[in-house]
C-alpha cells in the first residue's frame, strides 16, 4: 500500500479514521501528563495505575452488565485511584519504599483483576466477551462513541492541567517552596494524580493495561532530551504521543497483522532512541562529536607547543624538527602526522622535507599564546 493510499484511507476510511483519532488523543493526553509524572520521578506510577485499572473494568461490568466505554473507564479510574491512594498510604505510614509499594499494589490489583476476569468469563453471560481486550487493547474495536468519550475526558484533563499550570509547575520543581507559599500541596498532588489516572484510563481500550504505562514514560522521556523549558517539553511530549498514536494506527491498518498497542509503544520507543542520540545539547551523538572535536583541538595544540618548545631551545623559533621527535614527545602517537597536516592547512607549520617540520610566524604567535595560558611565566616569555 502506498503512502498516498494510506493518507486517503486516513481521510475516508471510517474505521481507520476513528482508530487513528483515538490513538492520537490518548497519545496527546498521556504525553502531556506523563511529562509531569517524569519530572516528579513518578514514571512508574503510570505502570501501577494502568495495571490496577483491570479489576475496576471487570467490576464495573459485573455491576452494570454494560460495556459502554464511559462506564468501564469510570470503573477503571476508581480502581486506579484507590490503588494509588493505597500506595501512597503504604509509603507514608510504613517503612516500605516506593519500589516495593508500587510493585505490590500493581501486582495485587492486577491479580485481583485476573481473578475477577476469569470468574466473569465462566458466567453464563455472553456479554462479557471482549473484556479481555483490555489486557492488550484492541484499537480496532474503538467506536466513534468511544473516541468521543476519550476526547471529552481528554479535553477536561488538558484544560485542568492548563488551569493549574503555575501550581503544578511549582509542585514539580520546588515542592517545599510551594508548601511555604501556603499552596494546598496535598490537594494539588491528588488533582495531578487524578489527571494522570484519567490520561491512562482513556487509553486502556486501545493500548491495554500492560502497555499503557509506556505511553506515560516514553513521549515524556523523549521530549525531555530536546528542551529545558516545561511548556516546550509538555507540548513536545504531547506531540510525540500523538505521532506515535497516529503512525501506530496507520501501520496496523496496512493489514500486516500487527496490533496497534505494541506498535504505538514501539514507535514511541523509537522516538526516545532517536532523541537520546540526536537531540541537540543532551544527545549522546553530539556529546561524542564534541568530545572528538576537543580531542582533535587538544592534539593540534600539543603538537604546536611541542614544536615551539623544541625550537625555543635552539634560540630560533623557526628551527625545524623531525616528526620522530614530536612523536617521541607524545608517546609515539599516530595522530601526530594528521595533526601536522591539519596545522599546515591552517598555515601554522610548514613542511621542509619528508620528515622535518617548522613553525611559521603565525604558528609561533599561536603557540606563544597557548604556552602563556598554561605557563604564564614559563618558556613563552
Amino acid at each position: 500500500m502506498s503512502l498516498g493510499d494510506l493518507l486517503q484511507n486516513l481521510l475516508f476510511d471510517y474505521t481507520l479514521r476513528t482508530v487513528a483519532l483515538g490513538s492520537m488523543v490518548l497519545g496527546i493526553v498521556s504525553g502531556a501528563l506523563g511529562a509531569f509524572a517524569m519530572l516528579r520521578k513518578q514514571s512508574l506510577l503510570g505502570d501501577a495505575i494502568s495495571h490496577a485499572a483491570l479489576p475496576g473494568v471487570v467490576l464495573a461490568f459485573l455491576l452494570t452488565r454494560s460495556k459502554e466505554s464511559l462506564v468501564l473507564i469510570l470503573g477503571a479510574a476508581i480502581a486506579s485511584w484507590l490503588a494509588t491512594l493505597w500506595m501512597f498510604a503504604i509509603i507514608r505510614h510504613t517503612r516500605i519504599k516506593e519500589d516495593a509499594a508500587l510493585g505490590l499494589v500493581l501486582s495485587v490489583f492486577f491479580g485481583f483483576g485476573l481473578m475477577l476476569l476469569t470468574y466473569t468469563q465462566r458466567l453464563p453471560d455472553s456479554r462479557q466477551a471482549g473484556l479481555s481486550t483490555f489486557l492488550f487493547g484492541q484499537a480496532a474495536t474503538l467506536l466513534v462513541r468511544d473516541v468521543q468519550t476519550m476526547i471529552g475526558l481528554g479535553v477536561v484533563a488538558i484544560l485542568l492541567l492548563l488551569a493549574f499550570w503555575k501550581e503544578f509547575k511549582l509542585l514539580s520543581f520546588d515542592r517545599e517552596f510551594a508548601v511555604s507559599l501556603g499552596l494546598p500541596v496535598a490537594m494539588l498532588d491528588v488533582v495531578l494524580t487524578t489527571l494522570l489516572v484519567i490520561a491512562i484510563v482513556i487509553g486502556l481500550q486501545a493500548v491495554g493495561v500492560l502497555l499503557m504505562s509506556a505511553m506515560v514514560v516514553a513521549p515524556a522521556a523523549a521530549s525531555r532530551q530536546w528542551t529545558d523549558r516545561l511548556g516546550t517539553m509538555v507540548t513536545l511530549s504531547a506531540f510525540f504521543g500523538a505521532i506515535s498514536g497516529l503512525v501506530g494506527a496507520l501501520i496496523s491498518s496496512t493489514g500486516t497483522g500487527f496490533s496497534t498497542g505494541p506498535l504505538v509503544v514501539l514507535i514511541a520507543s523509537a522516538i526516545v532512541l532517536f532523541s537520546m542520540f540526536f537531540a541537540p545539547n543532551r544527545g549522546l551523538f553530539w556529546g561524542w562529536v564534541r568530545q572528538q572535536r576537543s580531542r582533535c583541538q587538544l592534539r593540534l595544540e600539543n603538537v604546536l607547543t611541542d614544536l615551539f618548545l623544541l625550537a625555543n631551545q635552539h634560540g630560533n623559533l623557526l628551527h625545524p624538527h623531525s616528526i620522530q621527535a614530536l612523536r617521541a614527545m607524545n608517546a609515539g602517537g599516530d595522530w601526530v602526522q594528521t595533526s601536522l597536516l591539519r596545522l599546515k592547512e591552517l598555515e601554522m607549520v610548514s613542511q621542509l622535507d619528508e620528515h622535518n617540520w617548522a613553525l611559521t610566524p603565525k604558528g609561533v604567535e599561536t603557540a606563544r599564546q597557548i604556552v602563556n595560558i598554561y605557563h604564564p611565566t614559563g618558556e613563552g616569555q
Partner: protein
Amino acid sequence: MSASQIEIQLIAIITAVACALPGVLLVLRRVSMLSDAISHTVLLGIVIGFFITEDLNSPLLIVGAAAVGVLTVTLISLLQRTRLFKEDAAIGLVFPALFSIAVLLISRYAGNVHLDTDAVLVGELAFAPFDRFIVFGRDLGPRGLYVMLGILLANLLFITLFYKELKLTTFDAGLAASLGFAPVFLHYILMSLVSLTVVGAFDIVGSILVVALIITPPAAAYLLTDDMARMIGLSVLIGTLSAISGYWLAYLLDASIAGSMATMTGVIFFLVFLFAPERGLVSTARRRVRQKWEFALTMLAIHLFNHENTSEYNEESRFEHLREHLHWDNFFATQVVQRALDSRLIQRQNGTLILTTDGRERAKTALSR
C-alpha cells in the same frame, strides 16, 4: 481432596516459596520494580526460544528467557548511566519496548501455534497436573513440580551460600565493595535467579503474577521483623498461606488460581499493614494517641511543679488557667485533668490542683532528662 488438588497446592506452595526467597533481597535492596520489568520481558526470551526450538517444553526457552531478563537489567543500567534518564524512567522505557516486540512477534508469527500471550501472562495452574514428568515409563508426578522445585533449590542454595555477602551488599554496598566483595557481580547473579524464577513460573502462575508472589510476602514480612533471617522465614510462611488460601478461593469462585493467589497475598499484606504489632496502622495510631496523653500529663505535672512554692501558685494552678498557659481547649483540659486525677498525679484542693508525690517525681524525671 483428590490427588490432582494436592499436586496443584504443592506446586503453588513451592512456587510461592521459590518467589519469596529472592523477593526478600529485592525488597531490601529497593529494586523490586526490576522484577516487574523482568516479568514482562521474559516473554521475549520465551518467544525467541520458541521460534528456534518450536517446542514449548524445551529447556532452551528457560535459558533464553533468563538471558533476556539479564539483558533487561543491563539495558536499564546502561540507560541510567547515560544520565539522560532517572532510574524509574529507564525501567519504564526498557520493559514496554521489549514486551511490545514480544507481543508483536506472537501476534504476527505464532498466531496459530500453541503460544498465545494470554497463556504466558495468566498461566493456568489448574492444568499443571496434566503435564507429567515421566522417566522410563514411570510417572513421577507433574513436570511443573520438578521445575519449580529445581528453581527453589537454586534460590535456596544461592541465599545460604552467600548469606553473609548478600546481607553486606544489601545493607552497605559501599562497605562490601571496599572489603573486596563484588556487589555488582552478586547483583547480576541475583537478577539471573529472579529471571529464572519468573520463567519457571510463567506457565504455572503466569509471568505477571509472579511479581505479586515476589514482592508482597517479603513486604508484609518487612513490617513484622527487623531480622533478615526471620524476614525470609516469614515471607516463606506468608507465601505458603497465600498459595493455599488462594487455591481454595479460586476453587470457590471457579476463577484463575494465580489471580486468586495474588489477591490473597494482597489480603494478607493488607491485614499486616493494618494490624502488625509494631508497625501496623492501628498500633501506630494507638501509640500516637497514648503518646499524646502521656505528653499532656507530663506537661501538666511540669507546669504545676514549676510554680510550686511560688506566690502565684494559687493563680497558676487553677483549672481555668491551664487553657491560657498550655493553650488547651476546655474539653482537652478537662480530659487531661481527669486522667491526671485518675492516675494519682494530682489532687484537687479548694479549686486548685496540687501535685502528689508521684506527680512531682514525674515532673522531676521529665525535666532531668
